[in-house]
């Protein structure tokens, strides 16, 4: 799967290996999970709670027993209590009264214990599952997310988790209740009268067949429903995130038609699911009621014939009716089970995705720095990067960047600049060769160590919900407010932040649309400054800045970030000019390498770019 994912990357100019189409599991929202993964997932979620599930089941068992005792006490009261009372013996009746009181209070108390205990198990499982989905998604590569879309991930962690919640909160109780009452009532019936009990047990045969049929049909319907709601969510999220262009280009009606179609698909599968349930209910009720009538008939004959006590028949009749009470609940359980199974399959498919960039198994630390300079040496050692079916982006690439050097990389779109940056930031791993930081392969570094080493600032400056200060502190979560402000000041962002309604504590979501793209890029820089990495990568990170903003960034790089190793990818040659060294890339190769002055003086590509840029400055 990872290779298919890698096929989708940022620069489409290079070949891509898999066509998009209906055969694509991403488009069908149908990532393959290994066989049995769904069941394994459910088991692993419940495994930790095995003991508590057993206790909950036990509580429910005792509670059912207390509830089921009612008719028995009725039979006892009529058969024994009445004659005894007539004979002046109040004992049996007092026993009945005490027994009923005990059962009623016991049932209530156990009900309370069970509901709370089950909720605790349920919520712990959900917390676990939500966490697993989230953590796994965070580990998966950027490419994966570009294909999977935020909408699907939302669907997995909300509506699909919700299906499991229904199964656990109602289903678990239903299942335990159904099994317990089937077993206990059957036993009581068998004990009361072997014949009637046997008929009751025999009626489970057709019920089992019904259940099997229902499961087969409902499984397919629920799988379709889960896909359909994910489609709805994807479209919904995309519209809300792009609401400005939606408005400006009058997409409202077209969107409504598209959304309507997706929504209708969900509506259909939803209706189908409800209809399957209706079928099951009719079938199971018919079986149950026929059995009840049969048993009564038989029992009545035998009472009439004198081979059965009236009290036994009365109790049996009460129990028989209750024997089938849980078939509706069984239906509800099956319903939530199938719905949850469909959702869990989707979740298992997501969790089965291998991270394209695995965490180091035996992490090493970076060596102590030789001198006082904060930078580190970067080496691309025979690095080749390609997508599965060829289309090499970097054909064997060697590069050494000494500690503390600022290197600018220029070249046309698709020349491989971004790939270079992403390899160094370890968004990808090279197909061949190694990327070394002070002699250590990036693949051998644990994430925290890697990020002390290398940090990348990209063009998209996304702000998370929360305050401006929190957004900057992503660079270093344990930073104090002073450090956050110092970083903002160093990059020239302090002025605008101080001017916000609540300064650093301004909630960006409340005014999220109102922090301009340039300001967001400044916040992104402040983050990087705060992270204080040995190697800083700037991938088109200044595109939305105005000239003073760009100057501030350059100034910060000369002062605060002095001595860092820096790789700067920029279209603006003003940024490039201050570099120690310029690399010009073309088709994945370095075609020019030198100081800006050397290259400007020459007749190469950089000189051409530079002239064009000088012209653009003055018009």
């Amino acid at each position: 799967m990872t290779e298919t994912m890698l096929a989708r990357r940022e620069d489409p100019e290079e070949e891509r290996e898999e066509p998009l189409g209906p055969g694509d599991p991403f488009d069908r929202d149908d990532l393959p999970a290994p066989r049995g993964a769904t069941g394994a997932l459910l088991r692993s979620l419940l495994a930790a709670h095995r003991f508590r599930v057993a206790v909950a089941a036990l509580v429910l068992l005792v509670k059912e027993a207390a509830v089921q005792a009612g008719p028995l006490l009725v039979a006892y009261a009529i058969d024994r209590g009445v004659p005894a009372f007539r004979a002046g013996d109040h004992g049996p009746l007092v026993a009945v009264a005490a027994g009923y009181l005990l059962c009623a209070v016991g049932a209530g108390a156990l009900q309370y214990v069970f509901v709370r205990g089950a909720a605790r198990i349920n919520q712990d499982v959900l917390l676990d599952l939500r966490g697993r989905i989230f953590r796994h998604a965070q580990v998966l590569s950027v490419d994966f997310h570009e294909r999977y879309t935020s909408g699907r991930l939302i669907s997995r962690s909300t509506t699909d988790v919700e299906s499991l919640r229904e199964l656990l909160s109602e289903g678990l109780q239903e299942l335990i209740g159904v099994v317990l009452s089937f077993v206990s009532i059957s036993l009581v019936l068998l004990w009361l009268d072997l014949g009637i009990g046997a008929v009751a047990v025999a009626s489970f045969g057709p019920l089992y067949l019904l259940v099997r049929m229902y499961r087969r049909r409902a499984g397919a319907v629920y799988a379709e429903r889960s896909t359909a709601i994910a489609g709805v969510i994807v479209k919904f999220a995309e519209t809300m995130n792009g609401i400005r262009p939606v408005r400006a280009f009058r997409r409202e009606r077209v969107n409504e038609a598209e959304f309507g179609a997706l929504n209708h698909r969900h509506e259909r599968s939803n209706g189908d699911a409800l209809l399957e349930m209706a079928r099951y209910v009719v079938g199971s009720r018919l079986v149950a009621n026929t059995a009840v009538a049969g048993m009564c008939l038989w029992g009545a004959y035998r009472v009439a014939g004198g081979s059965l006590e009236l009290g036994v028949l009365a109790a049996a009749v009460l129990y028989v009716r209750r024997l089938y009470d849980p078939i509706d609940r069984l239906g509800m359980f099956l319903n939530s089970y199938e719905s949850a199974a469909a959702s869990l399959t989707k979740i298992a498919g997501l969790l089965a995705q291998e991270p394209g960039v695995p965490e180091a198994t035996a992490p090493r630390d970076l060596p102590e720095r030789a001198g006082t300079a904060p930078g580190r040496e970067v080496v691309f050692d025979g690095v080749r990067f390609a997508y599965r079916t060829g289309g090499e982006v970097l054909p064997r690439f060697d590069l050494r960047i000494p500690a503390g050097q600022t290197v600018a990389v220029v070249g046309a779109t698709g020349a491989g600049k971004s790939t270079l940056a992403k390899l160094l930031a370890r968004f990808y791993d090279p197909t061949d060769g190694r990327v070394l930081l002070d002699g250590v392969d990036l693949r051998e570094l644990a994430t925290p160590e890697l990020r002390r080493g290398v940090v990348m600032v990209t063009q998209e400056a996304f702000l998370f919900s929360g305050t401006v200060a929190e957004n900057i502190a992503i660079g270093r979560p344990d930073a104090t407010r002073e450090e956050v402000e110092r970083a903002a000041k160093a990059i020239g962002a302090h002025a605008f932040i101080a001017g916000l309604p609540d300064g650093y504590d301004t909630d960006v979501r409340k005014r999220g649309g109102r922090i301009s793209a340039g300001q967001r890029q400044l916040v992104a820089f402040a983050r990087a400054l705060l992270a204080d990495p040995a190697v800083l990568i700037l991938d088109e990170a200044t595109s939305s800045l105005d000239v003073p903003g760009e100057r501030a960034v350059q100034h910060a790089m000369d002062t605060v970030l002095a001595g860092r190793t820096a790789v700067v990818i920029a279209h603006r040659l003003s940024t490039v000019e201050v570099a120690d060294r310029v690399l010009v890339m073309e088709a994945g190769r370095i075609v020019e390498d030198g100081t800006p002055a050397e290259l400007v003086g020459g007749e190469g590509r950089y000189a051409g770019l530079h002239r064009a840029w000088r012209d653009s400055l003055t018009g």
Partner: protein
Amino acid sequence: MPEKPAPSESAPARRSAVRVLLRLWPYVRPVRGRFFTAGAVAIVASCLSLVIPLVLKWLVDGPVADRDPGGVWLGALYLLLLGITEAVLFGLRRWLVARPLSSVEARMREDLYGRLQRLPIAFHDRWASGQLLSRGTTDLMIVRMFLAFPLTFLVVNGVTIVAGCALLLAQDWSLGLVLLTPVVPVMVLCSYFERRYGVVARRAQDQVGDLTTVVEESVLGIRIVKGFGRHRSQAESFRRLAELLRSTELSKARLLATIWALITVLPELAIGAALVLGTVRVADGGLSAGTLVAFLSTALALRWPVDSIGFLLAMSQEAVTATERYFEVMDAEEERDAPAGAPAVHGSAAGLRFEGVSFRFPDAPEGAPPVLDGIDLHVRPGETLALVGATGSGKTTLTALVPRLHEASGGRILLDGEDIAVMERERLRTLVSVAFEEPTLFSASVGENVLMGADAAAGTPELDRALGIAQADGFVGRLPEGAGTQVGEQGLSLSGGQRQRLALARAVVGRPRFLVLDDPLSALDVHTEARVEAALREVLKETTALVVAHRPSTVMLADRVALLSEGRIAAVGTHQELLRSSTEYAWLMSGARTGEGDGRR
């Protein structure tokens, strides 16, 4: 960071549950026939369940006691018929509502989506999309389930309980009264519980919305999370929120457990008392054994309807809060077009004109300075005006006023003399085309994305022309399926520069009368930028354009430049004039504090 999730809009003063739920009526109305029939069917089916014990009583007291085989057959036959009818009615009820209920949910979701597309941008700025999404998904599912189950069964079980009580009283009024004693305490407990539960249910729903927001942001911001290796702390904040939700759910469970236990115990105690009293009376000969069996059988048949009240009320309460959340969005004021009156035409003033325009965000704190204040600006027909200003000076806001993405708070904006405030938005947005600072592509083909900017008649020639202007024809041609390649969130992701060029092509494809470009060339490399500029010059000749510019190269596209400073137009003139006359402008263009910018020429 999502440590403090976007606060969801606080719940309005609590209204009565019934009044909230009545707001669902317009959606239920179209399916009311089937819906009410299903309700009636459910009531009949439940009453049948109550009749069955009576048949049993008749069977035991009559034919069985009399040893009458024919009567036993008859009784069993009745029982079978009743059973079949009950089964069919149960199925019928579900069949009747299956499609209608899915359609209610679907209609509500469609309306929500449609409404959200038309709510002011300011609304979207305030609301995290996760909160909107959770209203459109989980909340609506709760509402659907409520209509399918709790609503019907509250009614059905209510009727069943009343009918059952009547039967009990008819069978034996004194035993019946004993059974009815817990009714009042149960009702009091239920109403107390309902209030408490509603508050917690609402909190849980809001927390689901916050969680949704974090999930969404974790994907939208994945490059930052990865770039800083923050997936652990991200997962940590997610966990904190998820734990918050867990504890809310647990307090919900605690409430539910309490009420459920009480609802189980109280009626059961009454049944026990009735049993003891009944037995005594049977012993005294005041009551037949059959009557007592039938009586208790009826009482036990009422057990489920009574027990179920607890969770039915809980589900209803969740539906109430879900409905409230839904209507919080639906009640927000849509953008409305002014009533069609005589268009205010000032024939003389052609072009794009701002007259004393001021703007402040509707939710800005009292006393905060307006973002834009008294903007007077005239872009003559066919002219291109560059808008230059420091970061955060209000340039983007100013451009957003033209297609009315935001509404000016004061003054007016005229397009060829027509006040945009009284124009139909649809027409306004046809006249004005925009390229945003952040180029958003939708899940559609490249061609469709570009042609969004033109009317339906536009086809390949227009597309080719627009791609050519934006210098996008080259890379689009190399895409796997050319202009038919899917892009956007569900398609191929393009680089920033490529997206920007497509957004530019989208803005110019319809040959709009007015063009608003927000820093349209920022992500392009120098060579491409030069080529786009050359092509764009041709386009700009025949349109009236406002271009936000950060750099001299973009300013060069314009005939004149306006300098926006602290919400006001500080100066208007040509690039050269402003370089000489305004130090701020020179600073913005060159980054140098003094008039160094001149030296560049």
